[in-house]
Every structure is written in structure tokens, then in C-alpha cells.
């Protein structure tokens, strides 16, 4: 929680950093200062030690002076020795006793007085000669005799006086021979008192070492008489140093801490004065001072941290607002106000930028929403367009209900919602079936619109077309019209005679169809013309084929052959043929579905790039022709043949049970048309011929007439002038054509390079109507 706030972290880091800096700086400073302090302490302590040494020296010098004076006086006046001793002892409080000891000899005084000071301060005397223990054999006496200039003896413990004493002996010489000595006793207590009287820093202690390294005096009385520590003595002996550091103090009062010892020699003796300063004491002051400074510094840093915290929180307060604003933005709420920035600093700029971002984001989201709605609308329009486009296509499956000679299965799958592929099929008349597959250039909506145009035009034009090539030509002309966008469509068109399996095909730049049968699958190579919509002059060659039972004709678009897999390999014609050869059954649906599934497997992962259309037409020739032609004649265009034909037609119609009224209508129409052809259509040549095909439909008689003569469209012939009496005019023309138009239920005409083609359709009149006519006729 604490570390989630930048202010807290910042102040903590400031605190930690400052403390570190302070500690390091303090440490370095302390190190440097402590060096100086030590030097200073050394100087002070050395001076102190020298001074103390001097003072002791002075006191000892007085003792020595007194003793030497006494010795000099004694030489000449040995008789008044005791008195002099008493006098000297009384005047010099430092002395605890004085003795004048003479070598027992004849000319020496007979007594050796000794005066000492009792504990109560009074003096007492005795004669050393009377001591049971003769002194002249004693070491101190013998050694003292060797000291005409005076020397300090070894200290000793006086049994009689119960104290440690030390002697200063000066030999009394006469004529160069010692006759005795003056011995001054100084108690070590006295020396100790001198030490204690020294002005020493608190915690320091002083001592005096004799030449043997034994403590003569010590501030700690327990140490008196002990030997100094070997390392101390070694150090002193080695360096003659004025100071030495002992890592562990000998004095138990120093508690084993390190001490500095400052040594000053005491002149006149071979003693040395030592001043011991505990190291801790030297540094105590500076330590204390540093501790105080550190404590103050810490307090100051704490205050600094607090101030940092407060300032940072204040400065970062807008950031908190921004942070909560950003969280709101993340939740999607963009409608809020930011407090105005107080300063144009980074936070102010951030606030400005954030506010602008919020506004821009709101605008952007609004625009995105609008775009999404627009997209949705477009998508729904595309969906509807897709439905409409689908409605333009006939159903996927077709089986000829009349003859069941073939079945057809078609699949169209646009790459997008709408596409440019098309297929269509329809019966042109009772017998001829038209099928087409096409592919508009480009994709998407323009292609879909062009596809709709193509398929609608094809349906409208097909009834007027005699052949696929003619249909393509007409379609091409129509599509070239106003085709500024230069769209084009490749189209393969076939017209199938549903009775015979005769198939006429023409291609406008389309993929060649595949014919599949028991022998395998092979491409039908046919010459193609230009794609529709590009060249008004384009011609389309025809290709004739007769379907055999069991054969399947596959029409497809380049969506099949140009499907690519993930490695951009094309599906290609070989795979197409191989797939069709492997087809499990000969049913049209299996061919189409199997091919599409194979293409899907091939293009898996690559996606569908182009519209795909497959159309399979399977020819069974399953049933005997119910629509078999009643007549299928080809005659010379002569009157005789015409009337023979009329007879044959009549007979055939009668055999089919066609009512006589209808037979007569048909006869009249055929007579008029054929006589017209014979009389007016020969175009200068005698060997014209007329083809007549007649067959019975479900509800009508269907007749086709083909004549290779002069073009003549009966539908375009002018209406004759009918006054109500033919005899009014000399010659009334066009009566026959007028009759034809009136009698035939349907009439269509086309003309191509093979001549005139007429298609006629006569509906069967209802039976009751026929009977009624007959009755009224009689």
C-alpha cells in the first residue's frame, strides 16, 4: 500500500539516500577527524606525561639534594648526624626516613643513626648498629657505598614500617674512600600520592616503572610491585618511544580495552613515568559529538522526507486525477472533466495532452460507431444483394420432367457476398434446352451488377436465338452497348436437343468444358470468340457434339482451375481431370459436389480468392421419346411437295387424335407459310428446301419450319386493309400472313445464315369448347 504511492516511494528513497550519504560522509569525516584527535591527544598526553615526569623528578631531586647535602655535611661533621637527620626529616615532608650508616671502622663514628617518621608524624630515632642484623653486610649498604653521586636503590618492603620503601643512597667519602652513606627512605605510597596529585584527564591513569620494568607506583595500588607487560616493556625497550598502544590494557580498571601509554623518563633515575589513556576516552568526545550530529542529521532527514512526501504529493496530485481519469477511459467512460493544469510543467502538459486524447478518443469512437453502423448497413444491403443475386440463378438441381433424358446440377459460390459468376439454364421450347456458365471480369458489386445484366439479357434474347453462337453474338452486341467501364464476361453457352442429345456449344473466351464418361475425363477443345462486351464485331464459332448415354458435361469457371493452395500453386486442369475421373458415381450432383470438395481441400488455408461455379449435365437418354417428333421432313420448296406434306401432317395429327378444327387451323397456317415460301422465297434459285419438324407437346402442337430462301419475317408483314368485303379492292395482299398470325397460338421468327426459322405453337382447344363449336356450326 505504502509503495503504491510515488510520493511515499520518493520520500523513502530520498530518506534512504540521504542517510547513506550522511553515514558515509560522517564515517569519512570521523576517520579524518579521529586521526587529528588522536594526534592532538598524543600531543596533549605527551606534554602531560613530560610535565608529570618533571614534577616527580623535582620531588625526587629535592630528596636527592637533601641526601647529597647531608652526605657532604656528614663527611665533615659525622658527630651531629642524628640531629641533622632529624632536622632534615622535619623539613622535608617527602622523606619518610633518613639514615646515616657508617662503615664500622675505628675512625668512623660509632653509631649510625636512623630517623624515621611515624604514622602520626612524630619522628623517632634508633641506632642501626644496635640492630641484631648488621647492616654492613646488606646489599643496599654495599651498593650504596658505590654511589658517591647518589643512586636509587631497589625498593623493598619494610617489615618494621609495614610499607614499601625505596632508598636513595649517597656515599659519604673521605679522602676518596667511602666511610658510610646517607640513606633516604621514600615510601612508594608517597610516589603514588604524587601520581594521584597529577592533573590527569578523567579515566587516564599514571604509573612509574623502575629500570627492571616493575611498577614502582600506580594509580591502581594493586599493580604496584608487578612486572609490566612484556609487550609494553619490549616496545619501550625497542623504540625508546614516548608512546605505545596496547591492544589490551594491563590495568584491570581499563577493562581490557586498548590504551595509549605515554612514557616520559624521570631524570636522575632510570625510572620511567607512564600515562595511560584508554583509547575510548580519546575518542569519547568526538564520538559523542558525531553521535549528536548524526542524531540531528537523522532528524533533519526525517523532516526532509516528510517535506518531500508533502511536496511530491502536492505536485503529483493532478497525476492521481489523471490516473483515475485513465482508469475511467479504460472502462470506456469518456465523458468527464479534468481540473485545469496549474503550471505549464510536465504534468500540465500531460494533463493537456490527456484531455485532448480523451476528446479525440471520444470523437474517434463516435466515428467508429458511425462507421460500424454504416458497415452494418452495407453488410445488410450486401446480404439482400446476395439474396437477389441468388434469385437470379435457377435452382441447383434440374431434371427434365418431360423426357428425363438428362439431369443437371449446378453450384455457385461467390468469394464475397456477391460475385460475378453466373450460370443459367432454361427450356427454349418443348425440346431445346439452353445452359450457360459465365464469369464476369473483376469481383464484387460491379461484377454482380454486370452478371445480373448478362443473365437477364441472356434470358430475354435466348428465345430469339437459333443457336448458341447467335445468342452469344446478340448478347455481345447488347453488352457492348454503353459499356464504358469495359467490363466483360466470358460465357460458355450450350443448346441441347433434349430428344437426341445433340449439343451445340459456343464459347466467348470461357474455359473449355470437360466431358466425362467411362473412358475418363477430357477437355472439349473448342474455338472461342472474344469475351462478351469487348468487341462488337466478335464472331463465335459453333461446336457440335452428341451426348452419349452416361456422359456428363462439366462446365465451370476459373475459380476451379485457378484456386490456389497455401503455397500459391494452382489447382489446374490436370487436377480437375483427375478429380473428375475419380468421381464415385456418374450422378451430376456427385460430380459437382465432389469437385468442389476437392478444390476446398486443395485450397484449405489459402481461402477462396475467386467465385466458383460448377455445372454438371448428365445425359441419361433414359426414356423412350415421349416428345418424339410426329414428323421430321425435309422437302423441296415446290407446290407438289408442299401439299403432300400437308396431307402427311394431317394424317399424323389425326393419328395423334388432334381435333379436326385444330388440324384445319394447322393446315391453313402451314399452307399459307409454305406456299409463301415456294412462291416468294426462292430468291432466284429453284432448289430451295423446307424443313418441317412437328411434334406433340402436352398442351400444344409444336412445329418448326426452316427455309433456306429469302429472308421473310411474317411477324413484320404489314396488316392487310380489311374493308369488310374483299371484293372492294382489286387485289388484297397479306391475307395469308394475316390468317397465320390469327391462327397460330405462338409464332416466332428468326433468321440466320441458314435461312428463315419459324417456330409455331398451337394450343389444344378445350374439349368442351370444341364440341360447342361443332354444334353451333351445324
Amino acid at each position: 500500500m505504502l509503495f503504491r504511492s510515488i510520493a511515499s516511494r520518493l520520500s523513502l528513497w530520498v530518506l534512504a539516500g540521504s542517510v547513506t550519504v550522511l553515514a558515509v560522509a560522517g564515517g569519512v569525516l570521523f576517520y579524518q577527524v579521529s586521526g587529528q584527535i588522536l594526534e592532538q591527544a598524543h600531543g596533549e598526553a605527551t606534554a602531560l606525561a613530560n610535565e608529570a615526569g618533571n614534577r616527580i623528578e623535582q620531588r625526587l631531586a629535592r630528596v636527592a639534594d637533601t641526601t647529597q647535602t647531608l652526605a657532604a655535611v656528614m663527611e665533615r661533621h659525622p658527630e651531629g648526624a642524628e640531629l641533622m637527620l632529624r632536622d632534615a626529616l622535619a623539613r622535608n615532608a617527602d622523606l619518610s626516613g633518613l639514615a646515616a650508616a657508617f662503615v664500622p671502622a675505628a675512625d668512623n663514628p660509632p653509631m649510625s643513626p636512623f630517623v624515621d617518621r611515624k604514622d602520626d608524624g612524630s619522628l623517632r630515632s634508633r641506632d642501626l648498629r644496635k640492630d641484631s642484623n648488621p647492616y654492613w653486610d646488606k646489599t643496599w649498604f654495599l651498593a650504596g657505598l658505590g654511589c658517591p653521586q647518589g643512586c636509587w636503590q631497589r625498593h623493598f618492603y619494610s617489615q618494621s614500617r609495614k610499607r614499601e620503601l625505596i632508598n636513595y643512597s649517597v656515599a659519604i667519602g673521605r679522602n676518596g674512600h667511602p666511610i658510610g652513606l646517607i640513606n633516604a627512605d621514600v615510601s612508594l605510597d608517597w610516589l603514588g600520592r604524587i601520581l594521584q596529585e597529577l592533573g590527569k584527564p578523567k579515566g587516564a591513569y599514571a604509573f612509574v616503572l623502575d629500570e627492571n620494568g616493575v611498577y614502582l607506583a600506580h594509580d591502581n595500588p594493586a599493580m604496584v610491585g608487578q612486572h609490566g607487560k612484556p609487550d609494553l616493556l619490549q616496545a619501550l625497550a625497542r623504540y625508546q618511544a614516548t608512546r605505545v598502544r596496547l591492544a589490551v590494557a594491563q590495568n584491570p580498571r581499563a577493562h581490557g580495552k586498548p590504551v595509549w601509554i605515554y612514557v616520559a623518563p624521570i631524570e636522575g633515575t632510570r625510572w620511567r613515568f607512564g600515562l595511560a589513556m584508554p583509547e575510548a576516552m580519546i575518542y569519547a568526545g568526538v564520538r559523542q559529538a558525531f553521535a549528536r550530529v548524526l542524531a540531528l542529521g537523522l532528524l533533519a532527514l526525517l523532516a526532509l522526507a516528510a517535506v518531500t512526501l508533502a511536496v511530491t504529493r502536492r505536485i503529483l496530485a493532478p497525476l492521481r486525477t489523471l490516473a483515475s481519469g485513465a482508469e475511467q477511459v479504460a472502462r470506456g467512460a469518456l465523458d468527464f472533466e479534468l481540473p485545469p493544469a496549474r503550471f505549464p510543467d510536465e504534468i500540465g502538459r500531460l494533463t493537456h495532452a490527456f484531455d485532448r486524447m480523451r476528446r479525440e478518443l471520444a470523437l474517434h469512437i463516435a466515428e467508429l460507431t458511425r462507421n460500424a453502423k454504416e458497415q452494418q448497413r452495407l453488410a445488410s444491403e450486401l446480404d439482400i444483394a446476395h439474396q437477389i443475386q441468388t434469385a437470379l440463378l435457377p435452382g441447383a438441381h434440374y431434371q427434365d420432367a418431360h423426357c428425363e433424358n438428362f439431369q443437371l446440377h449446378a453450384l455457385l459460390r461467390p468469394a464475397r457476398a456477391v460475385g460475378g459468376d453466373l450460370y443459367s439454364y432454361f427450356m427454349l421450347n418443348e425440346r431445346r434446352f439452353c445452359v450457360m456458365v459465365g464469369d464476369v471480369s473483376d469481383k464484387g458489386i460491379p461484377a454482380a451488377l454486370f452478371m445480373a445484366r448478362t443473365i437477364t439479357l441472356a434470358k430475354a434474347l435466348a428465345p430469339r436465338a437459333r443457336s448458341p453462337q447467335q445468342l452469344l453474338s446478340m448478347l455481345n452486341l447488347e453488352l457492348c452497348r454503353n459499356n464504358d467501364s469495359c467490363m466483360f464476361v466470358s460465357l460458355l453457352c450450350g443448346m441441347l436437343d433434349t430428344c437426341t442429345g445433340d449439343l451445340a456449344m459456343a464459347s466467348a473466351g470461357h474455359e473449355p468444358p470437360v466431358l466425362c464418361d467411362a473412358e475418363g475425363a477430357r477437355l472439349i477443345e473448342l474455338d472461342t470468340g472474344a469475351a462478351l462486351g469487348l468487341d462488337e464485331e466478335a464472331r463465335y464459332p459453333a461446336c457440335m457434339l452428341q451426348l452419349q448415354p452416361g456422359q456428363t458435361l462439366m462446365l465451370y469457371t476459373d475459380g476451379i482451375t485457378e484456386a490456389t493452395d497455401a503455397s500459391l500453386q494452382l489447382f489446374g486442369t490436370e487436377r480437375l481431370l483427375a478429380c473428375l475421373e475419380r468421381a464415385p458415381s456418374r450422378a451430376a450432383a456427385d460430380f459437382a459436389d465432389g469437385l468442389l470438395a476437392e478444390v476446398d481441400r486443395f485450397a484449405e488455408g489459402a481461402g477462396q480468392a475467386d467465385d466458383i461455379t460448377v455445372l454438371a449435365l448428365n445425359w441419361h437418354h433414359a426414356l423412350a421419346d415421349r416428345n418424339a417428333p410426329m414428323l421430321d421432313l425435309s422437302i423441296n420448296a415446290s407446290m407438289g411437295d408442299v401439299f403432300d406434306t400437308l396431307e402427311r401432317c394431317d394424317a399424323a395429327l389425326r393419328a395423334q387424335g388432334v381435333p379436326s378444327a385444330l388440324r384445319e387451323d394447322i393446315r391453313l397456317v402451314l399452307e399459307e407459310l409454305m406456299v409463301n415460301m415456294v412462291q416468294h422465297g426462292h430468291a432466284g434459285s429453284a432448289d430451295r428446301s423446307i424443313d418441317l419438324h412437328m411434334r406433340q407437346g402436352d398442351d400444344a402442337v409444336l412445329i418448326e419450319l426452316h427455309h433456306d430462301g429469302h429472308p421473310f419475317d411474317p411477324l413484320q408483314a404489314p396488316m392487310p386493309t380489311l374493308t369488310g368485303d374483299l371484293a372492294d379492292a382489286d387485289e388484297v395482299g397479306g391475307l395469308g400472313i394475316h390468317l397465320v398470325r390469327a391462327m397460330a397460338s405462338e409464332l416466332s421468327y428468326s433468321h440466320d445464315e441458314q435461312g428463315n426459322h419459324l417456330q409455331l405453337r398451337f394450343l389444344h382447344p378445350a374439349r368442351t369448347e370444341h364440341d360447342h363449336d361443332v354444334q353451333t356450326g351445324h
Partner: protein
Amino acid sequence: MTFKLDTESESPDRTTLHLHGRLDAQTFNDFDRAMLDVLPRVREGGTVVLDLSALEYISSAGLRSIAMIRRSMRARGGHTLLLNPQPQVRKVFDIVKAVPLQEVFANTQELDRYLDHMQRQIAGDGPTGNA
């Protein structure tokens, strides 16, 4: 023989022609030729009755032949009347409006009444209505 013509001259004023079979592009020449014999024998102002009871079929060629007879008779001040056309023939006549309806009669009685009325009109020398 798909077409046959019987001529019956009841009187110099009235000649009845019985048409049998089909009058079409194949037979109208025969009919026309026969008429060349018959028509001059009809008196000026006389009447030719075409009995169509047995005419099964007529095409535009036959219509033209009949129109020629009527024009020829009209030129000579005579009349051509049609009797009892069969359904096919009647249908063809209707389609091309070949003859005025008052000159077509369903049976001989109507025809006779019309002829009597015309004769009285001639005798009375006044205009007359139709039957």
C-alpha cells in the same frame, strides 16, 4: 380429288354452285377456270349462290377466287350470295372480313326469303332493307 364443283342453273337469274372439298392454293386454279365457263352464262343482274355446305376448307387462295367472282358479278350488276359456310370456312371469312354478313346465309330458307324480297324490290323498283 380434293375439290369438286357442281353447277346448278335453276334460272337464268340464279345459278347455284355447290363447292366440295378444299379450296386452296392447289385447287383454286381449277375453280377459277370453271368460273370462266359459268359466269358468262349468268345473266346481267343475276345472282350466283355459292353453296359452301360441303366446302371443308378454304385458304387465302380460295378467298381470292371468291373475291374475284364477287367482283365480276358486281361489275355486271349481279349479286354473289354465300350459303351455309362450315366452321373452318366461316372462321376464315371472319378473320379477314371477306364478305358482308348480309350476303351469307345459314340455310336455303333464309336465302329464298332474301331472293324473294329482292325480286319484289326490283318489281316495286324501290330500295329495300335486308333480311
